[in-house]
């Protein structure tokens, strides 16, 4: 699982050297930015169900759909938000890349699902984060950057 620290350590190990001053500086840099993303992760865990429901309502609107389909859609949105929560914790896109994006296109296509609906859902979530009642400005920036990353991967 990639994170700022494991990337530094892996490359140091590949070269067989101890962590250098510049290695430690880059680790320090990631620690300095950590409070914002940890706040975002914490708040996202709190609002995860709410964001999922709101996005689902937005995507399905007032039309009549089978509940089973809506449940599956909610499950997927919930899954991706959980991976974003993990990304916020590691400080990299590792969890999304490894567990969310790899093979995603093929799976979605195989099931004849519209990626546009997912894009709409995540765009809605991105544009409707309440600052500062739900999370702070810095935290929201970290969260939105990952939503954008996911939207780009889906597009």
């Amino acid at each position: 699982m990639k994170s700022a620290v494991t990337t530094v350590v892996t490359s140091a190990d590949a070269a067989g050297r101890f962590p250098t001053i510049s290695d430690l500086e880059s680790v320090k840099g990631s620690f300095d930015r950590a409070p914002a993303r940890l706040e975002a992760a914490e708040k996202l865990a709190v609002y995860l169900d709410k964001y999922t429901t709101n996005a689902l309502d937005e995507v399905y609107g007032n039309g009549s759909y089978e509940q089973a389909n809506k449940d599956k859609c909610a499950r997927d949105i919930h899954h991706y938000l959980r991976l974003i929560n993990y990304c916020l914790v590691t400080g990299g896109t590792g969890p999304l890349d490894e567990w969310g994006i790899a093979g995603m296109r093929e799976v979605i296509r195989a099931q004849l699902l519209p990626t546009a609906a997912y894009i709409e859902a995540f765009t809605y979530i991105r544009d409707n984060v309440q600052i500062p009642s739900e999370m702070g400005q810095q935290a929201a920036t970290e969260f939105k950057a990952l939503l954008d990353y996911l939207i780009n991967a889906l597009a």
Partner: protein
Amino acid sequence: MLDAFSRAVVSADSKGSPIGSAELASLKKYVADANKRIDATLAITQNVSCIAADAVSGMVCENTGLTQPGGNCYPTRRMAACLRDGEIILRYVSYALLSGDPSILDDRCINGLKETYIALGVPMANAIRAIEIMKIATVAIMTETNTGRKMFDGINSGSGAECKDIASEAASYFDRVITALS
């Protein structure tokens, strides 16, 4: 390999739940103590040769037969291998300390170490003694409780006591290696 953050992710994923405030508390402490962790890592990386050389010399001093013909540190080629291994173990301890997680130490250093030493005929008790000395020296340097070293005169920041927790974390990584060899 994992660090403190990805360890939390992997264990949360096995439950399928997001990481909430309960799990984040220890990670926040890890971030808050980042400077101490970096200082402690520096304490190892800036004293590697000293720690490894002292440990191997100490081991030999306690068992002078090692450097005599027939001993396991005779000739110098084998003594050099010993010093090299000391540095390798220190390197993986420094990685584990920086990551706040022992997985890299387990995967890339400890796994198979005992079998290798048995195959090479390395006396386990002596290897363990050298690692013990490295542990003691590392903790002393981190907490600035080492005495009689001229290079520390006047440059001790006096903040060594604050690295106590980190130093005991580092000691636990040395203990992992010792346990694996025992």
